[in-house]
């Protein structure tokens, strides 16, 4: 390949790699930890009295009593069938459903005591797991509007990152066959590090490309939709409008749905989301 192409793309690779790498280091590290978000959330909860959990035959009673005493819970609650350190009570609803994604949650929990009486109380959650997730999404850059400001910054970093990936590939192409999987530990230690850089970079390239392109979409999808709407779809709606499901389900429907769905297959159901059309979630 021509030397001038290599020289241009080497410069491009150096600078895009340096700029993107610093922000990406934070996001990658936090992203790897976010894989364990649920576990972190359980770990961060200080040990204390665990709320009374309810037996399977009392789920319906708990739901009915909660809805009678706290009608606002009908907007949506989660029934946790199994106890867990980070969950304050079997039935949890958000007492502030109008909050934005960035406001702190205001979770309330409900359970039944030994006499079958309803006990409700607000409980606090640890912000740690969410903080790690926010670091993953924004690299810690503060500010938010319709989207988090840091997400836009990382979208721009995603562009720089994509340039770094392609330019690195271009630079490596002429010596690809010779250099790939070679790890030379000679006198020149720089050669060794470059070889390591190449073998790691090339084997993980598909994943890196996927990350770079999806970050751009995560950050800028609104603009991409607008551009498509403006140039291509015009008055055609981008999204099919589905008729709204009846969200006013009844607690017994959730129970019968759970039994229907879990008759043979799920021996350990974890959550019922209400209202909803029979959504039973594992964790």
């Amino acid at each position: 390949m021509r030397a001038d192409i290599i020289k241009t793309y080497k410069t491009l690779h150096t600078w895009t790699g340096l700029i993107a790498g610093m922000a990406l280091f934070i996001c990658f590290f936090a992203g790897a930890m976010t894989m364990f978000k649920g576990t972190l959330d359980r770990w961060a909860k200080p040990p204390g009295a665990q709320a009374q959990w309810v037996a399977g035959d009392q789920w319906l009673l708990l739901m009915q009593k909660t809805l009678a005493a706290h009608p606002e819970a009908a907007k949506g609650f989660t029934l946790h069938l199994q106890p867990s350190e980070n969950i304050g009570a079997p039935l949890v609803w958000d007492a502030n459903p109008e909050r934005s994604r960035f406001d702190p949650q205001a979770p309330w929990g409900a359970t039944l005591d030994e006499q079958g009486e309803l006990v409700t109380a607000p409980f606090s959650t640890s912000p740690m797991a969410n903080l790690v997730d926010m670091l993953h999404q924004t690299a810690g850059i503060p500010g938010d509007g319709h989207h988090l400001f840091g997400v836009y910054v990382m979208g721009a970093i995603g562009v720089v990152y994509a340039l770094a990936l392609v330019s690195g590939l271009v630079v490596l192409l002429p010596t690809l066959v010779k250099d790939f999987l070679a790890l030379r530990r000679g006198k020149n230690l720089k050669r060794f590090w470059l070889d390591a850089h190449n073998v790691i970079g090339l084997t993980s390239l598909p994943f890196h490309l996927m990350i770079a392109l999806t970050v751009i979409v995560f950050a800028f999808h609104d603009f991409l939709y607008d551009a498509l709407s403006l140039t291509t779809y015009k008055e055609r709606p981008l999204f099919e409008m589905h008729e709204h499901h009846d969200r006013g389900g009844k607690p017994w429907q959730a129970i019968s749905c759970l039994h229907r769905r879990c008759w043979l297959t799920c021996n350990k159901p974890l959550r019922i989301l209400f209202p909803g059309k029979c959504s039973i979630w594992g964790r």
Partner: protein
Amino acid sequence: MAKPKTPAIQPDWISKTLAGALLGFALAVAISGLFAWWGPGGIGAPDKVQFNMWAISLYWMTVWSLVYLFRTGLRAWLVLGSATTAAHVALFITPQILGAA
């Protein structure tokens, strides 16, 4: 040593980068729009807008990352500008051709 037939490419970082960013984006949107009309299922295929939206980033980054291969920034603007204009003209007249305006 024989002189290289083609002169070396100029870096022209600013003009090429702007061409990749602006013209690359406009071209990517047009490619995606053309695929929306001419690709499998046509404009009305359900949920195809998702593919078209996601693919813009792929087209855009492909154009942008290869824009530095142009010999000069001016050539990048001329070639990409013509391609972008042509793609958008094609996209504009496509509904008439398909009789779906």
